[in-house]
């Protein structure tokens, strides 16, 4: 048996590991710590799709309260032919409010060959229609396509406050509710009675008729709640799965560090009085994780590892430094250890299955490194691997996962 000895607290991450480019909790679809790719040109896969189908549709969408998106599906030949006929040599996108008319709200000269456009309209809650066309010599404006109408989302809360309340039993299928309501209307029967009829048919979860009435509500209550809701409206937050990393990276970045005076930030209670300007700051501006600033330039990274490998009878019991290790089916084994500077002793023991035969090896190692310049502070190169003696390589090749 090996003699008892004190193993120094070593052999782990001896060399300082590089700091990854991003840090913190993860986010959806993350595949690693490298920063996201920059804006990508349309790749080969997408380029295999046809440029146009020739359906002659102009599609308009309201992207947000202030922006519209339009695209049009014209075959290239038709586009070129129309552009050739235009006085200006290009097509024009017109944006109309409510309905198509002679005086559009906006008139956008399009780049040659353009098939889509983002249009800033700047107003929420307005109905828009797009029109694609061009002015032709002697003919004036010629309409090519007209879009579907869209309404931009409103910018803020509605002013309308007439309130109607309804009682809809969640466990009664819509079809039954509608059928009962239609029947009630036909017989000029109040909805409450219709609900009673449903209740009698076995829908016992229906609310009592008194609940159907709109709750009593005073102006004082209205004002008090409006105050709560007003504060909430200023705390807009649009965060789903995209943004945490960016936020945390920002918190942990140099600027945040400076701001905190080097203190570790702890969660704090909400202050209650949020500034309106803070609202937009909660969501990620770009959705792209922010890389922590790093020095670039020449770099050098050196790691040293220790590989203990060997073989014995497949059913033997092998320990390294007193810990049992798992043998491969052929009785071979290999273990890796990080090897920082220092002196180490490793006892390796093999015991036969019956326990009546054993062998041991006392391994001693020393590593001493002198660094000149910054070494080992950069991310490990993906292809950086330790040198392999042939025997080590053959032992490692069995480790399929």
């Amino acid at each position, binding site marked *: 048996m090996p003699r008892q000895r004190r193993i120094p607290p070593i052999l782990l991450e001896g060399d300082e590991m590089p700091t990854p480019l991003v840090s913190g*909790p993860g986010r959806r679809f993350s595949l690693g710590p490298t920063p996201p790719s920059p804006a990508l040109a349309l790749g080969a896969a997408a380029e295999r799709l046809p440029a146009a189908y020739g359906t002659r549709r102009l599609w308009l969408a309201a992207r947000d309260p202030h922006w519209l998106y339009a695209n049009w599906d014209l075959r290239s030949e038709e586009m070129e032919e129309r552009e050739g006929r235009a006085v200006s040599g290009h097509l024009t996108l017109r944006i109309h409010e409510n309905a198509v008319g002679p005086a559009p709200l906006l008139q956008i000269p399009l780049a040659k060959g353009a098939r889509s456009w983002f249009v800033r309209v700047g107003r929420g809650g307005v109905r828009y229609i797009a029109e694609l066309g061009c002015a032709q010599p002697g003919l004036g404006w010629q309409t090519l396509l007209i879009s579907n109408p869209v309404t931009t989302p409103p910018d803020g809360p509605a002013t309308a406050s007439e309130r109607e309340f309804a009682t809809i039993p969640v466990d009664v299928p819509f079809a039954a509710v509608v059928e009962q309501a239609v029947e009630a209307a036909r017989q000029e029967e109040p909805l409450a009675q219709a609900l009673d009829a449903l209740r009698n048919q076995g829908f016992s979860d229906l609310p009592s008729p008194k609940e159907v009435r709109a709750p009593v509500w005073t102006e004082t209550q209205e004002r008090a709640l409006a105050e709560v809701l007003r504060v909430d409206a200023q705390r807009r937050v649009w965060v789903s799965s995209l943004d945490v990393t960016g936020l945390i990276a920002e918190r942990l970045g140099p600027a945040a560090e400076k701001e905190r005076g080097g203190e570790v930030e702890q969660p*704090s209670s909400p202050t209650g009085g949020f500034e309106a300007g803070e609202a937009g700051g909660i969501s990620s501006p770009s*959705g792209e994780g922010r890389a922590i600033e790093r020095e670039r330039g020449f770099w050098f990274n050196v790691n040293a590892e220790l590989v203990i490998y060997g073989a014995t009878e497949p059913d033997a019991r092998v320990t390294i430094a007193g810990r049992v290790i798992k043998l491969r089916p052929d009785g071979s084994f290999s273990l890796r250890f990080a090897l920082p500077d220092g002196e180490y002793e490793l006892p390796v023991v093999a015991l036969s299955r019956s326990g009546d035969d054993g062998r041991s090896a006392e391994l001693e190692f020393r590593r001493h490194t002198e660094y000149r310049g910054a070494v080992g502070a950069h991310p490990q190169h993906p292809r950086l*691997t330790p040198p392999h003696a042939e025997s080590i390589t053959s032992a490692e090749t069995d480790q399929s996962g």
Partner: protein
Amino acid sequence: MPGYLALILHAHLPFVRHPEHERFLEESWLYEAITETYLPLADLIERWRKDRLNVRLTLTLTPTLCSMLSDPLLQSRYERRLSALIDLAEKEVHRTCWDAGCHRLAEAYLDRFTRLRARWHACDRNLLGVFRALQDQNRIEIATSAATHAVLPLLGDQPAAMRGQILTARDHYRACFGRDAVGFWLPECAYAPGVEEFLREANLRWFVVDTHGLGNAVPRPRYGTYAPVYTPEGLAVFGRDIESARQVWSRNEGYPGDTRYRDFYRDIGFDLDFDYVRPYLPSPDHRGFTGIKYQSITGGKGGKRCYNPADAQRAVTAQAAHFLEARERQLARLAEVMDQPPILTAPYDAELFGHWWHEGLAFLDAVVRGALDRASDFTFVTPTDYLRRHATHQVARPSPSTWGEGGHLGVWLNEKNEWIQPHLRVAEQRLTALVRRYPEPGELVDRALRQAARELMLAQASDWPFILHAGTSPEYAQRRVAAHLGRFQELYDMLMAGAVDEAGLREMETVDNLFPNLDWRYWR
């Protein structure tokens, strides 16, 4: 006056299944989420049940996720991955044996992965069955979502496309859970008027919008997000509570960024020698996450500290108490001004808990147990529970909105991804044209129509424009969109020519095999 807290966890992943590759990088999204969120979450709810805790949780399981969780190929691949992780953790136990901090972590990983594999075997690889049982035991409510998580407002002028997404989801839910869904998660919380018609057809009764979706509703909702409204079509709409969202996500207060928590990105798949970790990487030729991580977020410049679970647990305890105190204060404030018990609707991505935020499930546990220990004056309910107790609400039309950056469609419709839209619009029109062309098709045409609908819906997923926007795996997203639209085009050409190539069709059915009973008639 008591109040309610509706915790809603939205679990979703796009359909990623590549039988043509032995190991495929993006499939790891599913495997990581099973290991770190879905299995541990099921266990957590089980523990609540055993401890007789009176808590109800809502879980959205999207149809694509359900399809993957019940797919035999992905199940066996997950098992292989988990076994590989156990092997790696065993090696790590040895490798780290003289570093007390990392060694304890390596042992904990080994123990955790081994228990997860036992759990996986115990449920016979059927994680969906576990959630189904939890719903049948009345512990959770499972809501559904659009079939492939399409941003429904972008389908606004293509009613058949929207109808197909919603009714396919309804049918798939029935097949998975043996009952009808009551709640519907609007993908990306993206709402625009028009969705109600098909939700009502599917007898779906509630959905969630972001705060401003309800705040800007017409007429203005009396109770803001603290009570649902009914749309004129009779669907209940719950608005996201901004304060509980903010506490988890905010720049200044967000919990997951506590420096004591485990760093998501610092993984031995990136840190250690390539040859050593290579057999355990998601894809053999690229460094990737293994799931074994030893460092805490730490903060500041310089090296990372070794992760200390005890320190992290202290952060969890403090943050859970902080969260609960804030809810109690919020409800107390509302009690002064409201005449009915308010509901706080708190939806989160499920994968945040455990996967992106390692301690997230411990936080959830601490919130639930803390609330019950403190006898907090609120009840954990699901939206359906709430509607059963409170059926009278204001009628209002929510405002178009999403929970993405900017609150609208900017994430899914911008310069990086707008090129997808015209192709989708044409494919949507063409599918409807095909369906009308073949009112009574034979078996082969029936299969081709079904596959065409699958390919279209896979191309419609919100995930591809999201990835193109976020830049996490843009080439893959492009390839997926192009591949599905390309297959759709092939099927379209075959059907228009009246000659379906059975071998080609079979190959597509093998690769994109979700929704086996899809009904293409919904696209009429």
